[in-house]
């Protein structure tokens, strides 16, 4: 049975990763073209401007955390990247191509069709605050449904992979369980396995621990740290867990009112923030 290795076991390009401390960034992402780039992105709901000409980029393999007060537009960024919402203005670039636009022959960009969006989504996976497991499928089907019917993977292969992923998230025993039989933490781990099963290059994590009981948070965070440390998946997280931001991410972006107030490595942001807004926010949450 030649199943492909899990992303976790995939030998990363940066070979000496074991030598590097877990919290430190790996070497590669510093350079190279950005994998995700927001280019003057505006998002409005009616008159309400959520994102106001936003510019930022994420490099391949980078782990970026978005922090900031609620309502500052952090989640909107993830939803735009997942194409759950459309940009009002500006362009999001993923791996060099516009995400929700196509280039017309005259060089201008036009809103993309569903077909283009499905192509663009291939690279991106998302884990939601409310887990959103499918209640009409058991755990195994939740994980294999998309690989089999979207990627066209052989069912036996998809199931083998699902087993490995469940093993990874520590839920091998729950393969036939129904989502309603699982605790919130278990559901979220299945949701993470489900997202990984699609082999995304970019994993979006939207406040994945906010809906969990306090005692279940640590398990999910450990799992994510594990994935961050052992894979080359690019991660963009929105979180209120500052420890997670500090331990896992290489770059922290502080948001307020639709703008990036400040960005930098976590050590810098958390110990010596430049901006008053950042300081006030950190004082409030830490």
């Amino acid at each position, binding site marked *: 049975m030649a199943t492909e290795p899990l992303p976790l076991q995939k030998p990363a390009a940066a070979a000496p990763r074991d030598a590097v401390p877990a919290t430190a960034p790996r070497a590669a992402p510093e350079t190279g073209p950005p994998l995700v780039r927001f280019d003057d992105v505006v998002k409005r709901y009616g008159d309400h401007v959520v994102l106001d000409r936003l510019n930022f980029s994420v490099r391949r393999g980078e782990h970026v955390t978005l922090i900031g007060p609620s309502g500052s537009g952090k989640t909107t960024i993830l939803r735009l990247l*997942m194409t759950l919402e459309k940009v009002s203005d500006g362009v999001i670039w993923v791996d060099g191509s516009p995400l929700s636009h196509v280039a017309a022959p005259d060089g201008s960009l036009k809103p993309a069709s569903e077909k283009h969006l*499905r192509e663009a*989504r291939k690279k991106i996976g*998302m884990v939601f605050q409310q887990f959103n497991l499918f*209640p*009409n499928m058991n755990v195994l089907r939740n994980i294999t*449904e998309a690989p089999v019917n979207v990627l066209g993977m052989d069912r036996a292969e998809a199931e083998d992979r699902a087993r490995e992923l469940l093993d990874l998230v520590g839920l091998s025993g729950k393969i036939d369980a129904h989502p*309603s039989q699982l605790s919130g933490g278990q559901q979220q781990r299945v949701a993470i396995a489900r997202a990984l099963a699609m082999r995304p290059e970019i994993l979006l994590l939207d406040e994945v621990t906010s809906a969990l009981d306090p005692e279940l948070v640590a398990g999910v965070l450990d799992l994510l740290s594990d994935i961050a440390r052992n894979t080359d998946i690019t991660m963009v997280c929105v979180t209120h867990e500052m420890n997670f931001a500090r331990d896992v991410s290489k770059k922290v972006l502080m948001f307020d009112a639709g703008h990036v107030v400040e960005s930098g490595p976590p050590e810098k942001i958390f110990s010596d923030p430049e901006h008053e807004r950042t300081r006030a926010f950190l004082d409030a949450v830490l």
Partner: protein
Amino acid sequence: MSDFFSAFLDDLPQLRSGLWVTLQATVLGALAALLLSFALGLMSVGRLLVLRGVSRVVVEFFRGTSLYIQLFWLYYAMPTLTGYELDPLLCGVVAFGLNYGAYGAEVVRGAIGSVPRGQYEAAVALNMSPLHRMRKVILPQAWVQMIPSFTNLLIQLLKCTPLLWLISAADLMTVVQQLRDRTGETLAAYLTLLVIYFVLAYALTLLMNLLERSAKRRLGLHTGAGSLLRSRSATEAVASPAGGAR
């Protein structure tokens, strides 16, 4: 009274055939309505404005014009207008299908709308195609929501089958009326008819509750045994007054 019951027993074969006509009209009418419900309901949640408009117009038209008139139109008016005549039973099936299909479309639309948005978003995040999302994620969950309302509509449809008598379809009501004319036992005849309908309504409710229970179990929702005998209207007449009664 005893005259009536001996006549009732003598007429059992006719009663059976009348019951058969009524049941056929109910079941076939309900199937036609179910098909139309899904066709119109899916159109109404689709992306194409034209289809949404068509669905809206058809639904409002068949809900707004009385079932009684639709049936009579099919039976009396259509032959003179088109020269094409439908068998009375088929008239009933078509009219029931159109009328209850229009009500059912609203049920389908409402149930699809009640599936949490996160389910749709998770399906998008897994890059499922619109058809795949609808078929594997949205509809299986919406279906559970639809069953109680469909049960309600099914009983309403059953209660309208005596209309077949008016277009001479030899249904249960026709047969019992003949029995009443022969025996002169008005009260016994109509009470018998009502009791038969009551039993039919309860049998159908029970079947639909079983269906609902198995559908709920597939979603991991567990229901007590008591829910099986629950009367349909007690819960649903209130939950959906618009879809509840015609």
